[in-house]
Structure formats: structure tokens, C-alpha cells
């Protein structure tokens, strides 16, 4: 297990280094930061001076090392657009997005897995057919439309839920703000989280259903039935447990992509998260924020992947790599 963990950590470091390089190169090839800071009217002398001050006149590898060292200290430079340290800008936005993604995924799992199991157990039932139909709608409905529909029903018509923003937030520690502890925060997160979860529910449900149907046909499920185990034990302990590896894989990847790319939903609900920040930064060519964003997303994916691998080992003993060979 230790060897395995070290290997994984090594791979993780490699991925992050590669992404940092890309993030760094953005500075070189996407506009000149010196011009961006001093403005188009500055003289060549002024620019050279600033370049020297910022260490931008040295050889590229040296600059990259500087960049990485800065990154490790949490220094991603200043946002061109906001004039604030990039880290602080990100730190303000990350909690909103993370909470949205986690709540959305939690909803998706709570509905998707039971629905998948149910439709697998009663493939011919009326409710199963309806659920499958609904999931088709869920998978094909664009999230901006879903968001607007929810806003129209629950904000405009019924007036129950706020149509934008995050509601009141509470500060936890120095970095994190949460909207999950206030009523207005909970109300505010409901619609965006549902919007995000609709596609995920449909996908998780279909995946669980397909895996479950497969698992129910296995010899060990038949043997479990032949031993007279109650159907709940057969269906959940024996069948469902064997479907979880692919489910965990997909959920991990999806969680990463919700965190990284919830742009549309965040825009529709004016959710003060990373997606909104990303759009604003692209519009303003705010390279430091964009490159830090890139590194952050890479970090998220790498972390999730790592956790998924650990989960595999917990779910399926055959994946535990440190095991001694099988005994003949």
C-alpha cells in the first residue's frame, strides 16, 4: 500500500508540474503582463524597468522556477482586473463552488442510486418505465433551460426561493465561508444544486441500473438466493456492492467537472463561484487568475482521482495491490 501511495503521489506531482508549466506559459504567450499593467501608452524604458523589477528579464527556466516557488507559497500574483492577490480572489470563490458541487452531487447520489436499483429490480414496472423516460429528459435537457425553468416556477411564480446569489453566509475559519448554515443560504443553494444534479441523477441512475442488471445475473447472486438470504441482502449487500467501482469512477470524474465547469449554472443563478469568476476573467484577459484557475482545477481532479483510487481499494478487495499473491 505504501509503495502504491508513493507512486500515486509521484504521478500527482508530475501532473501538477505539467499543468503549472502550461499555466506559466499562458503568461508568455497570452499578452504581455507589463503592457497590461502599465497600459498601452507606456514607454519602452518604463516597460524594461518594470520587467527587471518583476524578474521577467531572466531566462525562461529561471522564471518558471520563480513561478512555481511563488505558487508553493500561495503567491499567484495580482489579478489584473481586481488588483488583489489572486489567491484571495480564488479563496473567496472556491467555497461557493465547492458547496454547490457537493450538494448537487449529494442530491444526485441520493436519488440516482435508489432509482437505478429500483429500475433494475423491476425492469417492466410502470414506475420504472416512467423513471427511465424522465432520466432521458434529464440527460438531454440543457442546464441553462432547467435553471430558467426553476427560476420561473419557484422564484417568479411562487416566490418561494431567491433567483440569484448565495444568501447569507457564515465565516468558518479564515478561508471558508459557508451558506449551508443559514436559512437563506440553504434556500439559495437549492435551485442551483438541483439544476446541477439533474444530469448527474440521470447518468448515475442509468449507470447503476445497467451495472445492477448485470450483477443480478451473476452466479454469486443466484447462490445468495439459493442460500435463502432475504431479497434486501441479496440486492444490496451482494448485487449493489458489486456495482460500485464504476459508479465511484464516474462520480469522481463528474464531481471534478462540476467544480471546474459549473459556468452555465453559476451564470444563470449569479452564483458567486469559480465559474462566474472564470467568465469575468476571460472577458478581462485576467491571466494570473486564469492560470491559477487552471492549476486549481488540476489540483481538484488529481485529488479526486487519488481519493477514488483509495475508495476502489475499500470497495473491491481484488484491487488492493499490497495483497500477497493468492494461495493455490
Amino acid at each position: 500500500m505504501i509503495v502504491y501511495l508513493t507512486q500515486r503521489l509521484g504521478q500527482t506531482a508530475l501532473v501538477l508540474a505539467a499543468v503549472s508549466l502550461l499555466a506559466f506559459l499562458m503568461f508568455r504567450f497570452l499578452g504581455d503582463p507589463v503592457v497590461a499593467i502599465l497600459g498601452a501608452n507606456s514607454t519602452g524604458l518604463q516597460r524594461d524597468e518594470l520587467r527587471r523589477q518583476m524578474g521577467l528579464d531572466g531566462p525562461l527556466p529561471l522564471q518558471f522556477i520563480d513561478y512555481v516557488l511563488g505558487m508553493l507559497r500561495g503567491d499567484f500574483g495580482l489579478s489584473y482586473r481586481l488588483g488583489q492577490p489572486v489567491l484571495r480572489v480564488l479563496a473567496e470563490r472556491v467555497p461557493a463552488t465547492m458547496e454547490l458541487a457537493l450538494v448537487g452531487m449529494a442530491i444526485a447520489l441520493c436519488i440516482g442510486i435508489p432509482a437505478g436499483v429500483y429500475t433494475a429490480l423491476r425492469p417492466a414496472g410502470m414506475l420504472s418505465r416512467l423513471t427511465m423516460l424522465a432520466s432521458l429528459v434529464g440527460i438531454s435537457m440543457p442546464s441553462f433551460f432547467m435553471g430558467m425553468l426553476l427560476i420561473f416556477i419557484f422564484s417568479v411564480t411562487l416566490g418561494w426561493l431567491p433567483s440569484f446569489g448565495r444568501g447569507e453566509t457564515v465565516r468558518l475559519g479564515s478561508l471558508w465561508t459557508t451558506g449551508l448554515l443559514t436559512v437563506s443560504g440553504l434556500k439559495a443553494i437549492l435551485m442551483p444544486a438541483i439544476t446541477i444534479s439533474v444530469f448527474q441523477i440521470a447518468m448515475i441512475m442509468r449507470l447503476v441500473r445497467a451495472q445492477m442488471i448485470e450483477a443480478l445475473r451473476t452466479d454469486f447472486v443466484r447462490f445468495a438466493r439459493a442460500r435463502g438470504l432475504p431479497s434486501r441482502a441479496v440486492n444490496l449487500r451482494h448485487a449493489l456492492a458489486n456495482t460500485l467501482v464504476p459508479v465511484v469512477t464516474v462520480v469522481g470524474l463528474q464531481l471534478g467537472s462540476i467544480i471546474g465547469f459549473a459556468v452555465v449554472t453559476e451564470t444563470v443563478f449569479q452564483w458567486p463561484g469559480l465559474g462566474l469568476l472564470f467568465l469575468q476573467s476571460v472577458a478581462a484577459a485576467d491571466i494570473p487568475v486564469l492560470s491559477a484557475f487552471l492549476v486549481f482545477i488540476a489540483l481538484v481532479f488529481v485529488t479526486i482521482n487519488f481519493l477514488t483510487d483509495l475508495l476502489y481499494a475499500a470497495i473491491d478487495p481484488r484491487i488492493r495491490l499490497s495483497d500477497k499473491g493468492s494461495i493455490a
Partner: protein
Amino acid sequence: MTILDVSGLSVRFASQGRTVHAVEDVSFSLAAGETLGIVGESGSGKSVTALSVMRLVPTPPGRIVAGRVLFQGRDLLTLGDEDIRRIRGREIAMIFQDPMTSLNPVLTIGRQLTEVLEVHLGLHPRAARNEAVDLLKLVGIPEAASRLDEYPHRFSGGMRQRVMIAMAVACKPRLLIADEPTTALDVTIQAQILEILSNLQRELGMAMVLITHDLGVVAGLADRVAVMYGGQIVEEGPTAALFADPRMPYTIGLLGSIPRLDRPDDRRLTPIRGKPPEAAGRPVGCRFAPRCQHVAPVCRTEAPPFRPIGHDRHARCHFEVRLTDEGVHAQGSRVLSPKDA
């Protein structure tokens, strides 16, 4: 005392708009502690018969359309789902052919053993664990206590088959149905597994239905044999009598097509001509007629009855086929005596 009495069992499968008669009018009975061997080719209905007794025929597409399965006087086919579940694993246990796929890969074998004990006998987890160790010892697994927390992939095929047997007999069932228990195993392991089965049977006083296509296995273990062909039992009787003097041409062919070491024999093996019938397109008369060497016109038009032939024996044939001293390999040496024709 009769423990299992199956009569008139018929099972159909709906397959692509056609109805397949997988099992048709199967009857047999089994006394407590007795072993019945059911032999036949693949697709002859042996496994479906066994699954019907357990009420494990996948429905749909399968459906038990007729018959009675009396187990200790109760008709299993009319029991509710919950009642039959209580019988499965506790009073009637079943083991399957493939030990590699019949154990759940994500649960320890200890868990898979104890869950049966907890469900059926209401044992406390700790008591169940102790019992599980004893069960593993019973089927000859070394260092049983330490292997309880291991997962199936750490066990070899023969060991897994032992584990499967331990799980099946955990609640000391009255009847064990073994569906091709040795088919997937090496020959050396086969003998060990068969020995374990016969020891367990003696110790626990279980009756056993042993399904196999291996006549050698049946000869060694079974008190009685039922030969299945095309979804029907075509001959049934005490093992020794049936092997020494098979009556139904299919049984004769089956015995003639395997090498025998117990006879100095320079004769050639005689395979049965043709292919087994497809379950969907079976002939009107005798199922075996298209392949039978002694076929007569009546065989093609009229299904033969399953009738008594001599003491304690039945066969499904219009004719009484007798063998001469030449044995089963001799050609054209049988005396046919048309009865109904």
C-alpha cells in the same frame, strides 16, 4: 421415508416468441439420506429441474406450468416467496458448477458464511463466526480461523468449491442439490470434492440430488439414477441395476459411449448418432426417435409412456430392450419385443 417427491413437473421458457419445453412431465422421488444422480447431456433439463425444486427458475422467461414438488409433505410450488426463502439454504441447499463465480468477490468468505447462519438460525455474530470456523474445518480448509477474513480471490478453485459447500450445508439441510459440483475442477480435485460431499452426507444425514453429465461420478455416489433426455426422464432405477442392464436405447447408448476400464475390451466405443434435440423443435413421438437405432414407426407418432420395467425401475420406451451377454457395445444383438405396436 420419502423426503422429496416430484411429480409431473413441466417448465417452459419463452424465448423470442417461441415456447421452449425445458422440462416435461418429470417425476422422481428421493428417500431421506438417499442420493439420486441425474445424468444427461447439456440442455436435457437437469439444471432446470433442480432450479425448479428451489423455485429459482428465472421468471420470466421461465415458468413452471405443471407439477408438484412435495418436500416433507409440503408442495414447494405453492408456497409464498417468504416461505420458500426460509426453506432455501436451511432445509434444501444447492451448490453450483462454477466455484470461481459463485462467491461474492467483495465480501469475505467469513461474512458470506455467517450471513446464512444469522438469517436462518438467528445466531449472534460471534457465535456465527465460531460456527463458520467449524464449517470450514468440516470441508477440509486448513487454518480455517485465519482464512475467514480473506476474500474469495485468494482461494483456488477447489478451495472455493469447498467454501461453497460449507456455505450450502451451514444450516445442516435435509437435502442438498449439487448441480455439476465437479465439472469445473481438475480431476484430482474432483475426487476430493466428491469425497467431502459423501462424508458430509453421511455425517449430516442429508439426501442428495447429484446432477452431472459424468457417469463415473454417478456410479460412485448415487443410490439411484435418473437419465434425462430432451427435458424428460427416460430411465430411472437403482444405480447398479441400471448400469448393469440399461433398457432405454438412450441409456444404452450413453453407457456405450464411454470407455470402461473394468472390462478387457477390444471393442470400439459406440457414440450415439446425431445431435441432441433442440428444445424448441422436439419431435412429436419419442424424443430420442431420430437418433435411436431401434426406431419403429410407432416411435415417431406416439410419445412412449414412462412405465415400470421390472423391480423398482422405469423407462420411457415403447419397447423392452434387452441386452445379450455381448454387453452394451455389441451391435444388432438386442431382442426387440414390440408391446404396443
